[in-house]
């Protein structure tokens, strides 16, 4: 049974099969992402009510929070892919991990900068060295370190192994980011959605937040597959199926 499952996975993860299937999935992800992001932005900017405490400045939440969620989600994808690649030697897992890194770095950058832009009018400071902000900054450095490590090692297989190990070790930072607002005194507000209790955000603000969060996920799905397809074409360039596609 296990053998049959592994055979299926290996077949599914074969570069040729992946290239064909992902080509079909990308347009769906991309269009759905575009619709969700436009709807979420309109809802977030113009329809959701003004916050009684923060005025209109809180509308930055609809970019800031989904971007911060993505920064952690993509890191977990990279670590899990890295582990899969190390354990089962599935090359495609390495491709997914390395294709994810720049996207994760971009979302981390967005979370940090939009947080800073939101912090200025609300806290009176662009930046404070508290636990949430500092651990998120470390996440950005982890992404950049991952990308630097990958390009510094010439042998692609050795690079993939080293990167997978870095990604797995770096996972320790993820719970630190999430719980930082509980463990340490901080200016940053606590969780309003991702907690076991009922979310303490009003439904009229929760809907655009979830639209944006889902839009960001699908956007990531489309972009990571596009990047992975490009990598597969290059690494498999001596195979007949690639020659047939290029023509």
């Amino acid at each position, binding site marked *: 049974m296990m053998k049959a499952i592994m055979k299926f996975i290996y077949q599914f993860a074969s570069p040729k099969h992946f290239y064909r299937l992902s080509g079909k999935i990308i347009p769906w992800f991309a269009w759905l992402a575009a619709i969700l992001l436009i709807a979420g*932005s309109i809802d977030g*900017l*113009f329809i959701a009510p*003004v916050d009684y405490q923060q*005025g*209109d*400045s809180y*509308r*930055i939440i609809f*970019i*800031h929070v989904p*971007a911060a969620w993505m920064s952690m989600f993509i890191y977990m994808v990279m670590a899990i892919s890295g582990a899969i690649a190390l354990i089962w030697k599935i090359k495609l897992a390495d491709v997914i991990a390395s294709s994810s890194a*720049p*996207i994760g770095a*971009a979302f981390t*950058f*967005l979370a940090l*900068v*939009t947080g800073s*832009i*939101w912090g*200025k*009018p609300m806290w009176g400071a662009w930046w404070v060295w508290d636990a949430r902000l500092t651990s998120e900054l470390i996440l950005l450095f982890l992404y950049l370190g991952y990308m630097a490590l990958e390009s510094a090692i010439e042998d692609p297989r050795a690079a993939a192994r080293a990167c997978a190990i870095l990604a797995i070790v770096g996972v320790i930072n993820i719970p630190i980011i999430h719980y930082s607002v509980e463990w340490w005194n901080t200016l940053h507000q606590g969780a309003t959605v991702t907690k076991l209790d009922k979310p303490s955000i009003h439904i009229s603000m929760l809907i655009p937040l979830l639209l944006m969060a889902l839009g960001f996920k699908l*956007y990531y799905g*489309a*972009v990571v597959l*596009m*990047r992975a*397809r*490009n990598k597969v*074409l*290059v690494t498999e*360039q001596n195979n007949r199926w*690639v*020659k047939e596609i*290029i*023509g």
Partner: protein
Amino acid sequence: MMEMLQMGKYGAYVWSSYGLALIVMGYVAFKPLLDKKTIFKELSMKYRRESQSNNKQEQA
């Protein structure tokens, strides 16, 4: 309408956040499309060179 765009007194903060997100996410999404074009061009040139050198070998 103008009032809506001004976002109270926070227009600059809100719009710069959304603008930045648009620029960053736009760049990240379009980069692989450009890369794909380059890869197709380079690989097709490489294959052409290979087939030409194969033909020459056969003729010789």
